[in-house]
């Protein structure tokens, strides 16, 4: 879990948009609307770090991951991998890059082919990249590394528990010695005690192979243990980005604060004493996002300006970014020293938060 500052970022995403068209019509499909799944997102992923990406279902985090993998082609904006623009690269150009970025999926039941043996599953990336010959010994090595044994190689996925299947998924992702692993909710489907096993494993592997992780999760409790920095997404936009520890003690955006407050604390006494903000309502429809700040219809602090002007991503001390007109947990001095971040969405206004 170390981040090396100063070097070129491994991934650089700039003003990335991905809109899904909604088509309708009798004879000719015409686009009647668009779902703003990813709506102007800018961030970078440094080599060797883990960036946590958090948001509720439907906020666009999976689409963002798919765009980085180039499983979908972005509508606007650029994605750079190691300095190279891959936003519109062809399948042929992408192939050599794909071995450097691998993915681990959420559902360990759906992401392994039930008709293939474990050795076939783990060896398939090697086969696809034309190095299938000495795969057998490499498979054994990989299984051993993720905490399974060589005898598991001849079994089928249904013979394994959820946690073991996720280990198989991790072994497959490691097969080509990638630089980057995109983890899309890798532990959400697992029991708590098993979650800890997988997270510890991911931690060890990162240290051993110098991997870079993008770790997607739908709540803030798990990502804390793996992340160096955490980005919070809401309705297709990054609304807060900060060093992991800072985000928990000092959430600036009210949405982040609400997400934190919604996590029950496993301690009855502290839970009884804690003041809870129960967020009313649900995330709005991404087909027709609200004007101004996307969070304003649910925000307890919203005022007139929030309905009108989209807040820019404002940079506070320690590179803490947050998009909010009425920030929490910051002093007047900090607000005065804040400036608009170049990562702000192009459609956002120039109004920075004002000291009270």
């Amino acid at each position, binding site marked *: 879990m170390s981040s090396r500052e100063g070097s070129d970022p491994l991934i650089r995403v700039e003003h990335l948009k991905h809109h899904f068209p909604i088509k309708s019509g009798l004879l000719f499909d015409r686009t009647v609307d668009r779902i703003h799944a990813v709506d102007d997102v800018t961030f970078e992923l440094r080599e060797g770090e883990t960036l946590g990406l958090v948001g509720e*279902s439907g906020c666009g985090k999976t689409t963002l991951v798919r765009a980085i993998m180039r499983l979908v082609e972005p509508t606007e904006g650029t994605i750079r991998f190691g300095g190279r623009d891959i936003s519109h690269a062809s399948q042929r150009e992408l192939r050599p890059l794909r071995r450097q970025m691998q993915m681990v999926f959420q559902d360990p039941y759906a992401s392994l082919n039930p008709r293939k043996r474990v050795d076939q599953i783990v060896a398939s990336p090697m086969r696809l990249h034309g190095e299938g010959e000495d795969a057998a010994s490499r498979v054994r090595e990989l299984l051993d590394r993720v905490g399974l044994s060589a005898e598991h190689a001849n079994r089928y996925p249904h013979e394994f528990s959820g946690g073991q299947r996720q280990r198989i998924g991790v072994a497959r992702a490691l097969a080509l010695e990638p630089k980057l692993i995109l983890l899309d909710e890798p532990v959400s489907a697992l029991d708590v*005690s098993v979650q800890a*096993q997988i997270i*510890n494993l991911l931690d060890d592997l990162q240290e051993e192979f110098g991997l870079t992780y993008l770790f997607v999760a739908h709540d803030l*409790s*798990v990502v804390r243990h793996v992340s160096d920095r955490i980005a919070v997404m809401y309705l297709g936009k990054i609304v807060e980005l900060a060093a992991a520890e800072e985000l928990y003690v000092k959430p600036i955006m009210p949405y982040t604060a609400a997400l934190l407050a919604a996590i*029950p604390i496993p301690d009855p006494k502290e*839970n009884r004493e804690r003041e809870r903000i129960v*967020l009313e309502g649900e995330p709005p429809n991404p087909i027709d996002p609200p004007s101004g700040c996307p969070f304003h219809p649910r925000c307890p602090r919203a005022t007139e300006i929030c309905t009108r002007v989209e807040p820019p991503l404002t940079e506070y001390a320690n590179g803490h970014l947050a998009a909010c007109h009425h920030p929490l947990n910051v002093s007047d001095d900090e607000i005065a020293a804040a400036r608009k971040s170049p990562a702000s969405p192009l459609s956002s206004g120039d109004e920075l938060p004002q000291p009270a």
Partner: protein
Amino acid sequence: MSEPLLSVEDLHVRFNTEGGVVHAVDGVSFDLARGEILAVVGESGCGKSVTAQTIMGLTRTTNAEHEGSVRFRDRELLTAPNSELRKVRGAEIAMIFQDPMTSLNPVHRIGDQIVEQILAHEELPEPEARKRAVELLDRVGIPQARERMRSYPHEFSGGMRQRVMIAMALSCGPEVLIADEPTTALDVTIQAQILERIRELRETEDAGVILVTHDLGVVADIADRILVMYAGRIVEQGTLDEIFYDPQHPYTWGLLGSITRIDRERPERLPAIAGLPPSLADRPEGCHFRPRCPHEFDKCPEKPPLEPRGGAAGHCDRCWLSPEEKRAKRMVQGQIGLGSKGAVA
């Protein structure tokens, strides 16, 4: 305590499968009182869902064998004929399932599904039932309930569907609500809303709630009493505070130790329980947790009874260690945890 509302006694459920007899529930007993929220906690495959489903008569498959008793007020449910069970199900005992995506019928309107449920149990003119359905949707926080009656399930989000499930469960004013992982598929902000509704139901209807979950955060938030299950058996039971502040069984220590806490310093490594739960078709002799337990000793191959071992009468566990030993062994780096085999980490 007054007369229990629901009483489960020495319940056994076995399934005959190709891989042998799966003993999914092995001698589970508990009482549920009015206005009480009882949490059943454990890992996947520990028998918690099968216990809940058996109360509702949902495990009556051809390969299943049942033993013991499930009494609801003065009626025996385990051996009741299906026709009688049908009257109880949905009306007096209602259930909310884990997956709100698959538990509503996708080809019927939301409103029609709630109305059908009401009319199945009560003789009412249909407009009356419709009126009640609208009130119910309104009560669980569906905006514009009257218009939403005409929607189909796919037009609702996961949280809204789970609220529809709760509305249906409430439709006949049940006395017992069984909620099987009601918030597992939902986002945390929506989870908080749903738990609020369950709490309300307990207060307004004085219903007893059985909450099946693997999330101890949810339990700490809402439960009065807790049953901890492992491999088909209850390994510990007690009040919320007893389980969280004076846990007796090493498995409970492991569960408590492996939850991530956002209000504490983050540990270098997350404490995990090593290994896997045993297969229910082939469980170890004696204490089932033995192979994963770092504190195993020569008495463990003998089956420990579930009994109070010091402390309150209601606080029982299945571990041979003495209370003093437990108090010493459960502290790992100043917190409750299982520790690890061999060297102390």
